[in-house]
């Protein structure tokens, strides 16, 4: 059965492995994927532990429907106590690793303790072995999977591994699988490095039996047709997530040079049209009909022969935000970040910040190790700085510590350093504008993993949908003007809880209401949960699961890092510096502190949290979170 997948608890210190079934109660409360993962993280991380110590855990969680024919059910979460934010670490990836984990009989792996020597896990058909990885230490994320496949003599083995950055405990190190997929954010690769865990290899032959196979098949076809009938699916099939770059760029919705301006002079080399000369095809993650993964090859020059999949819009806005003027720079940056295993989004943010410090004369060549960090040098700097970061050499030793570490290290040169390193809860911001849309700003401010769009971003806010449609969707008044603060607390809350449900299910967020109200949401989830697993949920019950998961993550953040209202902030720049360029509706935009605070109050109230953003006792009771260990510990 799909519901028979197990939880494995792997203790690397004691060299012990045990398995647990997933109870029906746990399914009712947390569903699967990120939800059960959050419960496991909350219960297995030793409170207030060092994220790089053996008291931290690495939790890998496939969704309840991952591996089934629910559309794009490929997703798997990597989490733990984040070495980047000190709070809830959580990152999601597609590809084939998650489904294979399910076919191997597991939905969650909880990896505790730390090994004295490099190891990897071999997970196959209900069994788990801890194997020596001395020969893999030092290998990159492209070589490692093949070495494992060769030694285990099975080409179908799926591997998630860390690269040099993870081994060296670079804070922003990630987990990767295949040419394309990364659980990129919040530093789960760094946690693995601290545990000397190089890789997890999975292979399974087990059935995910369906409750109602015939209906499930028919329904899957119907939902696939529904997805493919949308314009966004068609656009993504051709241009991937990059399909929006031209629009956001020309309207003034992208930030450049660390958010100093929202206009790039030399942008023509970065368009999706300019990418065409590198593109060789499109590929899909497990069971995805949209296939938004570009395949590319660099045919000439120093990097001739480089092949890869991606990059995403997000990488385009990240690596393309500090002066790079051609795709080759982006592709090489993407290639190297993947090879070493580094979060491109967070890393680019931190580099932008440090480059602005250099621009302003706050740091000089003595600090940069002789590098000229002028914006004009971006094309040359990206590969150099990525290598330095992975190896913790030169300026890389500072970059490797993430936003909070950089602020700590460089504040001795000026008290303004914090202003220029843009982050929320220690996680770097994306390269897109979020100061003209209060909903986007509230989303990154309150996100349980720090500045990130995939926690709650209501992309729909830009669509100017009729207000009666919005009212129906969100259950209350929401302004259709993306610059308005009215109803945006409700909108953000709805999206964050909804995305939490998607992450529990294990399908791709881009095939849900994220991009279009015509893409699957609660109605579809209720149906395919019923046909595939036999579990019956109401739409409201699913929404409540999302709320429970989000609130538990919030509790973890308070318990581990003391995060409260003061940390639900946006970078000061978004408040103090109005946008200089863009369409009339965008130019001049910035966040109003007073209105933002009022919106935050509304958001807390909708959640049943107090003025400090902490869940009230009655909220905990309503969500049955009073059964979890207390989150307010004695300091």
């Amino acid at each position: 059965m799909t519901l028979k997948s197990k939880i494995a608890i792997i203790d690397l210190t004691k060299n012990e492995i045990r398995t647990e079934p997933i109870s029906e109660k746990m399914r009712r409360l947390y569903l699967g994927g990120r939800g059960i993962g959050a419960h496991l993280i909350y219960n297995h991380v030793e409170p207030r532990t060092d994220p790089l110590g053996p008291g931290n855990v690495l939790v890998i969680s496939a969704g309840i429907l991952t591996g089934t024919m629910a559309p794009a059910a490929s997703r798997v979460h990597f989490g733990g106590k984040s070495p980047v934010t000190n709070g809830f670490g959580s990152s999601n990836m597609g590809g084939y690793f998650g489904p294979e984990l399910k076919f191997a009989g597991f939905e969650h792996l909880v990896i505790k303790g730390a090994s004295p020597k490099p190891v990897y896990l071999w997970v196959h058909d209900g069994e788990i072995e801890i194997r020596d990885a001395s020969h893999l230490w030092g290998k990159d994320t492209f070589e490692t999977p093949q070495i494992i496949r060769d030694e285990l003599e099975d080409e179908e083995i799926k591997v998630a591994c860390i690269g040099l950055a993870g081994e060296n405990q670079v804070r922003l190190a990630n987990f990767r699988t295949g040419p394309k997929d990364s659980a990129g954010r919040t530093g789960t690769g760094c946690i693995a490095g601290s545990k000397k865990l190089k890789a997890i290899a999975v292979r399974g032959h087990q059935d995910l039996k369906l409750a109602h196979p015939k209906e499930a098949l028919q329904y899957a076809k119907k939902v696939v047709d529904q997805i493919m009938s949308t314009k966004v699916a068609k656009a993504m099939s051709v241009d991937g997530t990059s399909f929006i770059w031209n629009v956001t760029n020309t309207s003034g919705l992208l930030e450049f040079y660390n958010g100093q301006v929202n206009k790039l002079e030399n942008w023509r080399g970065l368009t999706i049209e300019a990418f065409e000369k590198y593109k060789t095809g499109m590929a899909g993650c497990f069971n995805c009909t949209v296939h938004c993964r570009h395949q590319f090859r660099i045919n000439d020059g120093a990097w001739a022969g480089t092949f890869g999949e991606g990059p995403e819009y997000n990488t385009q806005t990240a690596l393309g935000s500090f002066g790079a003027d051609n795709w080759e720079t982006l592709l090489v940056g993407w290639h190297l970040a993947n090879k070493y295993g580094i979060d491109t989004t967070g890393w680019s943010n931190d580099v932008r910040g440090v480059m602005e410090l250099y621009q302003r004369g706050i740091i000089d060549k003595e600090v940069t190790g002789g590098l000229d960090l002028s914006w004009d040098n971006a094309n040359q700097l990206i590969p150099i700085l990525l290598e330095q970061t992975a190896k913790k050499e030169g300026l890389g030793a500072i970059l490797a510590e993430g936003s909070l570490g950089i602020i700590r290290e460089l504040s001795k040169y000026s008290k303004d350093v914090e202003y220029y390193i843009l982050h929320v809860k220690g996680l770097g911001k994306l390269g897109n504008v979020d100061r003209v849309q209060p909903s986007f700003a509230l989303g990154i401010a309150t996100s349980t993993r720090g500045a990130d769009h995939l926690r709650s971003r209501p992309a729909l806010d830009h669509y100017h949908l009729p207000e009666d449609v919005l009212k129906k969707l969100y259950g209350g008044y929401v302004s259709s003007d993306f610059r308005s603060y009215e109803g945006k607390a409700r909108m953000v809350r709805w999206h964050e809880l909804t995305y939490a449900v998607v992450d529990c299910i294990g399908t791709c967020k881009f095939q849900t209401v994220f991009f279009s109200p015509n893409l699957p949401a609660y109605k579809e989830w209720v149906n395919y949960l019923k046909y595939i697993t036999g579990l019956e949920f109401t739409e409201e019950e699913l929404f409540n699961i999302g709320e429970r998961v989000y609130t538990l993550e919030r509790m973890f953040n308070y318990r581990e890092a003391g995060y409260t209202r003061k940390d639900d902030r946006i970078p000061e720049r978004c408040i103090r510096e109005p946008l200089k360029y863009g369409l009339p509706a965008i130019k001049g935009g910035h966040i109003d502190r007073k209105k933002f605070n009022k919106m935050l109050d509304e958001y807390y109230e909708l959640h049943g949290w107090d003025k400090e953003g902490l869940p009230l006792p009655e909220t905990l009771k309503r969500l049955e979170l009073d059964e979890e260990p207390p989150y307010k510990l004695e300091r």
Partner: protein
Amino acid sequence: MILVDYTKCTGCRLCETVCSVMNTGACNPERSRIKIIRWEWEGLQIPTLCLQCDEPACVTVCPVKALSRNSGSGCVKLNLSLCIGCKLCMQACPFGAMSYDFIKKEMIKCEFCDGDPACVKFCETQALQFVDVSNASLRKKRSLGAQVLMAIGKSEGAL
């Protein structure tokens, strides 16, 4: 026949999943009749499945005549009530199209889902198409013809 155009395959493997569901009631690519071979660093995905040969090696070697050609659909059918599981067909097939279902402990092969192959139905890019054998090559001929048309500047090459 199921016509394969590997250049259109995105490697999503939905065909494997729906094949296994159709035939076993479970999601399990290992029990699928179709298999995508992926060369991830070449960006190539190759669908492989039974080619329903005119002179099938599997039929020739089957000692109990469990395999036979269906004259109507052109499909090579496996009669499980006769099959003794000797796996000679698996050894003889040059394309690896005969597989062993290790859960049910029986031989499996593509039999076109009784004339409505699930893999084709779910293949969004039409890398798999269920076509009449007699028309199959005409499609390729038209495609070649269109290239000529494009070469002499009479068309944008849209088919």
